[in-house]
C-alpha cells in the first residue's frame, strides 16, 4: 500500500514537522510517525528487496511482525542494519537506507535470481556444489569457491566495523505484577492490580501505550477506546506504585519469573541527553506476569501476495487510526474472516476508497454484512484473489470463484484495478513469552489458532493473547487477571461476545492455490511450493520444515508465516495442523541489541584490580601486565632497554644487591579458630599443626582427584590465627575450596576463613643486601638471623607504619615479605626504596620475578596446570605419610603414578639462543615433519646468574633424562635448537643464599 495523510485524526503531532531522509531523498513527517507511516504518507510504496529473489517489497504490517520493510539506519557515523521501518520512530535528521539491493532499490541486479526460481528451491544447496573428486577443487574446495559468492549475495543489511559509539545500561527491577502489553487488557489489568496496592510495571513495545485502543473504533466504559486508554494511562502515571515503560519490548521469560525487557531510551531522539543510554536492558523479577500481548494478524497465501501494496487489513486500520495515513487509490479487501470488514468500514469512514471485499467464504454473518454496507461495497463471497499485477507497486488483482471446502478455484478470472490490497487470514495470539516459560500451545479449531494453555499461576493471560478477540472481553479479562495476580478472587466469567454481531472464527483457509509464486515467508522468500517440496522429500515435522526451507527463521521470526506454513504442510500430509507440530518459541521475542545485553560491561568487560602501589608503578614507567584482573608491573624499563635487557638488569640486581617487588596480589586468607591448625592439616598435603607461632611454612594443596592444585606459605600468627597465602591466579578458587570443606564436609570444625588479600600491601625484598636494608628502616624489632631466622615472622614499624615481616624466599635469595595495611603500602614501599638506594636496591617486575624462580626451579601455574601431580613436580617431599589429606587417596592411581609421565626438568639452550615457552622437546630433530614430542617448555628466561638461556620443561621420564641432549621443536615459530636436559634446580641447589 502507498498512502496519503488524512486531514485529521491519528495520534501524531501535526504541529511538529520532522525532516528525514530515505535512500538520500528528503521527506517530512510528523512527530510521532514511524518511518513506515511517514513514507506511506509520502506515497512511497517500495521499501526493500527480498532475501533470495530480490523481489520488490512494500510494508505488510504496522509493527514488530514486519517481514519486508527493513532499513539500515545511519546515525552517529555508524550503520545499524535490519530495523523494521514500522518500529522506527522518525526524528529530525534521521537517515535511513534500503537494503539488499544493488545498485538501487528501484533497479536491483539481484532480481535476476527470480529467473532461476525453480532451480533454487528449498534445499537446493544440499544437492549440488559438491564439485570434482580430484584436482585442486576436490574435497570441499569447490563448495568453498561457490560459497564465497553465495555469502556476498546472502545477508540482509550491510554492517560496518566502526566501534559502536553508544552506551547501554542494565536495570534491575522488582514488582508484584508485570503487565506485558498496554492494550485494553493490559491497562485493565494494571489498574486492577494497582488499585489493590500492588507494585506494578507495565511494559509495551510501542512508543505510545494503549495497544489497539489507539486505533480501534470500539467503545470502552462508554468512552471511545482511545479516550479510555488515555484516561487509564493518566491515572496510572500518577501512581507511586506503578511504573510505565513505553518503547520497552519484553523479550525473554526466564526461570523464576525473571523477565528481560529492552527499553529504547533515545533511539527516537535526535540527540541523547548526557549520560542517557541508548537502550536500557531491564531485568524484572515479577511476582506474577500478566501476558496481555495481543495477537498478530496472518496474511493469506496466494500468487503475487508479496507485491508492494498488499498489506494486512489490521495494519491499514492502524495506520489510519494511529497515524492518520490512508491507503491511496482504490482499495480491495481480501479475507477469510469478519474482522477485516471492520477495518474496511473504519477505513471507508476515514475517507478511503474501498472498491471491493473479496471473501473466501460463501456466507457471512449479519454483522459482517452490515460492516460491508458501511464500507459501501457488496462483498464478493466465495471468491479469492488468485494473482496480482504491477511492477514496483500493485496495479490490479485477479479474482476467481473459490470453493472453501475443496480449495478449488474456478470460473472466469476477473481483474480489478486497485492500488492497495488489504488481506486478513485470521489471528495468531502472541503466545511467545508463555512458550518461553514452558507452556505448550493448544490448537483451537474454532479460532484456527494456537492458544496458550491454562495459566500456571506464575503468569496469567488476558485479551487477544488468550484468544479473546473482542475489546470488551479483553477489558474484562484484564481486570480479572489484575485481581488474580494480586491474590484476589475473580467471580465472573468473561463475556466474549462480539460488540457488533460479527463472527470471529475465520474460515480454515490459508492458501489459495493458483499459478504463480505464493509466498509464505516473505522475508526469506519461502513459497508454498517450497513447503510442499519439503513434504515430498520427507521433511515433514515442523522443525525439519523450518530448517529445510528456512521458514520463519528471519528477523520477523515468522510471525506472519509460521501458522500458514504449518497449515500448508498439514494439508500436504493430510493431517490436522497440530500433528505437524508447534514451534517452541525461544528468547528473544524480538531482536535485541547485543550491546544492551552487555550493558555497562560494553567497553569495560572486567574491572581492573589495582595494588596499593599501582600509581607508583605507572609513574615509574612500568609496563603493566594483565594477570587475571590484576595489573602488575612486567618490567621497569629504562629508556632504550629491551624487555630482556630490563629484566636481566633487574634480576641481576637482586642476585648482586637487592630487589623490591610488589606481591600485594598474592591471595591472602585468614584462617581463624581453635580448629584452624587441624583444618590446615586436612587441606594441605603437609603438616601445619606443628608449626610454631611466628613461623611460616610452605604448603601444597591437591584437588580431590589427587592432582596438584595450589601452593603458598602459611604463617602462624597465634595459636588460633593463620595467614594463608595463595598464588595470585588461584586466590578465589582456594577460598572457595576452603569454604566448601568447612561448610559442606566438616561443618563441625570451629574455623572461619576471610579473604584479606586486599587488607595487606605486600613488598618482597630479596638479595644479599636485603637484611641490611631492612635493618636500616625497620624499628621496633631486630631483623638479624637470631631474631628473624628463615621462615620466621616479626612485627615492627617502617615509616611509622606497623609492619609484619616474614623471612621467606621465592627468588632463592635472602628475602623478606613485608606486609603493611594496604592504605599504608606506599609509604612503606617508599621507605624501603629510600633505605635501599645506597645499597643498590631496584624495583623489579614479573619478568625478573619469573627469571629468579626459573633459576631456582620453583613452580607456578605454568607447571601446576591442572594436569600435573605433586610427584611430576618433585614435590613428593611435601606429601605427608602420617595423615590423610585432600587428594591423598586419589594421587597414586596407576595413570598418575606412571614413571613415564611428563615431569619437571630444567633445560639449557646449547646454541646460546633464547628458548620459547610452548616449544616442544624432541629427541631427534625433524624440521619438516616434526614428530615424537617428549614434552614441552613451560617457562623461559635469560639467566644472568648462569649466563645462559634456560627454561623449565615437562618431559617424559623427567629425571631419567638429566644430562641428555635434546632439541626444542617449535614449528609454529620456526625455532629449533639443541638443549641439555638438567635438574630443575639450576641455581644454588643447596639453598645457601636464602638461608645465609
Amino acid at each position, binding site marked *: 500500500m502507498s498512502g496519503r495523510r488524512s486531514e485529521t485524526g491519528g495520534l501524531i503531532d501535526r504541529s511538529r514537522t520532522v525532516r528525514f531522509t530515505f535512500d538520500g531523498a528528503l521527506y517530512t513527517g510528523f512527530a510521532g510517525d514511524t518511518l513506515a507511516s511517514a513514507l506511506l504518507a509520502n506515497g512511497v510504496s517500495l521499501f526493500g528487496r527480498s532475501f533470495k529473489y530480490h523481489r520488490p517489497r512494500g510494508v505488510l504490517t504496522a509493527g514488530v511482525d514486519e517481514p519486508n520493510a527493513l532499513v539500515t539506519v545511519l546515525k552517529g557515523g555508524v550503520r545499524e542494519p535490519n530495523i523494521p521501518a514500522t518500529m522506527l520512530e522518525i526524528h529530525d535528521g534521521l537517515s535511513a537506507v534500503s537494503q539488499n539491493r544493488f545498485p538501487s532499490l528501484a533497479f536491483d541486479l539481484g532480481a535476476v535470481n527470480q529467473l532461476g526460481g525453480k532451480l533454487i528451491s528449498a534445499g537446493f544447496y544440499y544437492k549440488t556444489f559438491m564439485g570434482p573428486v580430484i584436482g585442486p577443487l576436490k574435497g570441499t574446495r569447490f563448495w568453498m569457491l561457490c560459497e564465497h559468492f553465495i555469502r556476498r549475495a546472502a545477508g540482509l543489511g550491510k554492517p560496518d566495523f566502526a566501534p559502536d559509539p553508544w552506551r547501554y*545500561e*542494565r*536495570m*534491575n*527491577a*522488582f514488582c508484584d505484577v508485570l503487565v506485558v502489553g498496554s492494550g485494553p487488557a493490559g491497562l485493565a489489568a494494571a489498574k486492577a492490580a494497582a488499585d489493590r496496592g500492588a*507494585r506494578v510495571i507495565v511494559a509495551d513495545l510501542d512508543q505510545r501505550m494503549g495497544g489497539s485502543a489507539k486505533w480501534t473504533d470500539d467503545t470502552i466504559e462508554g468512552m471511545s477506546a482511545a479516550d479510555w486508554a488515555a484516561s487509564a494511562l493518566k491515572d496510572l502515571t500518577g501512581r507511586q506504585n506503578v511504573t510505565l515503560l513505553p518503547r520497552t519490548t519484553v523479550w525473554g521469560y526466564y526461570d523464576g519469573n525473571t523477565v528481560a525487557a529492552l527499553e529504547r531510551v533515545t533511539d527516537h531522539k535526535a540527540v541523547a*541527553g*548526557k*549520560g*542517557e*543510554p541508548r537502550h536500557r536492558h531491564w*531485568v524484572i*523479577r515479577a511476582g506474577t506476569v500478566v501476558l496481555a500481548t495481543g495477537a498478530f494478524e496472518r496474511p493469506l497465501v496466494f500468487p503475487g501476495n508479496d507485491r508492494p501494496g498488499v498489506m494486512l487489513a489490521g495494519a491499514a486500520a492502524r495506520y489510519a487510526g494511529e497515524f492518520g495515513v490512508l491507503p491511496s487509490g482504490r482499495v480491495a479487501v481480501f479475507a477469510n474472516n469478519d474482522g477485516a470488514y471492520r477495518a474496511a468500514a473504519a477505513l471507508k469512514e476515514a475517507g478511503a476508497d474501498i472498491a471491493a471485499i473479496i471473501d473466501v467464504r460463501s456466507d457471512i454473518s449479519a454483522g459482517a454484512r452490515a460492516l460491508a454496507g458501511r464500507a459501501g461495497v457488496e462483498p464478493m463471497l466465495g471468491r479469492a484473489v488468485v494473482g496480482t499485477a504491477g511492477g514496483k507497486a500493485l496495479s490490479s488483482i485477479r479474482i476467481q470463484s473459490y470453493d472453501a471446502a475443496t480449495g478449488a478455484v474456478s470460473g472466469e478470472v476477473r481483474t480489478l484495478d486497485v492500488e492497495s490490497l488489504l488481506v486478513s487470514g485470521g489471528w495468531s495470539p502472541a503466545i511467545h513469552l508463555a512458550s518461553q516459560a514452558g507452556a505448550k500451545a493448544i490448537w483451537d479449531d474454532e479460532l484456527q489458532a494456537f492458544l496458550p494453555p491454562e495459566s500456571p499461576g506464575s503468569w496469567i493471560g488476558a485479551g487477544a493473547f488468550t484468544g479473546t478477540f473482542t475489546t470488551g472481553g479483553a477489558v474484562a479479562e484484564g481486570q480479572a487477571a489484575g485481581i488474580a495476580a494480586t491474590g484476589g478472587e475473580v467471580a465472573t466469567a468473561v463475556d466474549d461476545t462480539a460488540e457488533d454481531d460479527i463472527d470471529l472464527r475465520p474460515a480454515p483457509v490459508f492458501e489459495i492455490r493458483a499459478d504463480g509464486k505464493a509466498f509464505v515467508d516473505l522475508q526469506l522468500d519461502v513459497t508454498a511450493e517450497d513447503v510442499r517440496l519439503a513434504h515430498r522429500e520427507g521433511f515433514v515435522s515442523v522443525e525439519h520444515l523450518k530448517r529445510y526451507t528456512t521458514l520463519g527463521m528471519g528477523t520477523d521470526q515468522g510471525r506472519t508465516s509460521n501458522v500458514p506454513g504449518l497449515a500448508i504442510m498439514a494439508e500436504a500430509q493430510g493431517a490436522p495442523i497440530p500433528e505437524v507440530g508447534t514451534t517452541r518459541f525461544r528468547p528473544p521475542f524480538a531482536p535485541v541489541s547485543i550491546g544492551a545485553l552487555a550493558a*555497562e*560491561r560494553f567497553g*569495560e568487560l*572486567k*574491572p*581492573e*584490580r*589495582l*595494588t*596499593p602501589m*599501582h*600509581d607508583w608503578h605507572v609513574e615509574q614507567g612500568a609496563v603493566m601486565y594483565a594477570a587475571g*584482573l*590484576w595489573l602488575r608491573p612486567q618490567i621497569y624499563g629504562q629508556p632504550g632497554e629491551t624487555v630482556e635487557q630490563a629484566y636481566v638488569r633487574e634480576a641481576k640486581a637482586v642476585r648482586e644487591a637487592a630487589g623490591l617487588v610488589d606481591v*600485594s596480589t598474592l591471595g591472602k586468607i*585468614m584462617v*581463624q*579458630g*581453635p580448629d584452624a591448625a587441624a583444618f590446615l592439616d586436612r587441606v594441605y598435603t603437609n603438616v601445619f599443626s606443628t608449626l610454631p607461632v611466628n613461623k611460616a611454612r610452605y604448603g601444597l594443596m591437591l584437588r580431590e582427584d589427587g592432582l596438584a592444585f595450589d601452593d603458598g606459605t602459611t604463617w602462624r600468627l597465634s*595459636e*588460633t*590465627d593463620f595467614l594463608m597465602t595463595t598464588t595470585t591466579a588461584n586466590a578465589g578458587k582456594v577460598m572457595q575450596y576452603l569454604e566448601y570443606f568447612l561448610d559442606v564436609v566438616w561443618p563441625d570444625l*570451629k574455623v*572461619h576463613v*576471610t*579473604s*584479606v*588479600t*586486599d*587488607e*595487606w*600491601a605486600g613488598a618482597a625484598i630479596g638479595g644479599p643486601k636485603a637484611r641490611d636494608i631492612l635493618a636500616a628502616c625497620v624499628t621496633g624489632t631486630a631483623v638479624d638471623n637470631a631474631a628473624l631466622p628463615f621462615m620466621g615472622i616479626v612485627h615492627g614499624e617502617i*615509616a*611509622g*607504619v606497623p609492619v609484619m615481616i616474614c623471612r621467606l624466599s621465592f627468588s632463592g635469595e635472602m628475602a623478606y615479605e613485608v606486609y603493611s*595495611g*594496604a*592504605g*599504608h*603500602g*606506599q*609509604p612503606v614501599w617508599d621507605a624501603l626504596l629510600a633505605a635501599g638506594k645506597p645499597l643498590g636496591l631496584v624495583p623489579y617486575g614479573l619478568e625478573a620475578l619469573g627469571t629468579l624462580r626459573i633459576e631456582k626451579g620453583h613452580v607456578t601455574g605454568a607447571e601446576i596446570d591442572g594436569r600435573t601431580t605433586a610427584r611430576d613436580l618433585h614435590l613428593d617431599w611435601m606429601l605427608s605419610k602420617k595423615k590423610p589429606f585432600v587428594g591423598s587417596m586419589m594421587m597414586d592411581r596407576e595413570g598418575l603414578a606412571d614413571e613415564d609421565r611428563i615431569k619437571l626438568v630444567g633445560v639449557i639452550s646449547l646454541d646460546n639462543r633464547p628458548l620459547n615457552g610452548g616449544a616442544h622437546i624432541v629427541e631427534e630433530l625433524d624440521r619438516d615433519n616434526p614428530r615424537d614430542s617428549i614434552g614441552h617448555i613451560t617457562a623461559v628466561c635469560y639467566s644472568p646468574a648462569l649466563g645462559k638461556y634456560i627454561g623449565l620443561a615437562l618431559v617424559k621420564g623427567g629425571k631419567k633424562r638429566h644430562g641428555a641432549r635434546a632439541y626444542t621443536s617449535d614449528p609454529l615459530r620456526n625455532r629449533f635448537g639443541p638443549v641439555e636436559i638438567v635438574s630443575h634446580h639450576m641455581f644454588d641447589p643447596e639453598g645457601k643464599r636464602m638461608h645465609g
Partner: protein
Amino acid sequence: MVEQLSPLGDAWKPGAHGRMLGGAGVTLVETRPGSIVQLAAWRGEEKTIIDTIRDVSGLALADGAGAGVAEASRAAFGFAPGKFLVVDQAEGLGATYRAAITTDHGAVTDLSHGRTAIRLSGQRAEWVLAKFFALDFSLAAFPVGLGVSTAHHDVFAQIQRTGADQFDLYVFRSFARAFWTSLCHASEEVGYEVR
C-alpha cells in the same frame, strides 16, 4: 597513626558531573572510616557477639538476618549467618574487639584497610544502585539499618542502608577505583556530585 591513602587516586574528581537537571540526583563520597572490623561467631554464640557489639560500639542489633544500626560515626550490621561488620570513624576498633571476643566465641578480623567505604546518597540513589545489583532497594524491602552481601560481577559488596536516601557500600580495596568509576558513569544520567 599514619593516614591511609585512598585507593581512588585520580578517579576521585570532586564537583558536579553529568546531567544536572535541577541538582544532583546522587552524591558520592568516600567516607574513609578509621575502622572496619569483621566479627564472626561460632554457632550458638551469635548472641554473645551481638551483646559485645552493644557493649563496645553502643549499637543494639536485633537478632535477625542483616539486622543493623547506623549512627553518624559508627555502624554495624549482619551480612552472613553469624557474621557482622562493625564500622567506626575512629581507628583501633579491631584491637578493642580482639580483646573483647575470645576464641571461645568467635573470630575478629580487621579489614580497615581491605575494604573501601563509599556512600551513595540522594533522591536517585536507589535508581543508580539498581543498575548494579539484583536487589530490591525500595525502602519497604530494604529498610534503614539493613545490611546485605551482594556482588556486581567480580566486585563483591556489602551494603547498608544508612538513611532513607543513603547507602554505605563496602567493596574490596583493589576493586575500589574501578567500581567508583563505574558508579560515576552510571550516575551521569541523573547528575552527580562527588565530595
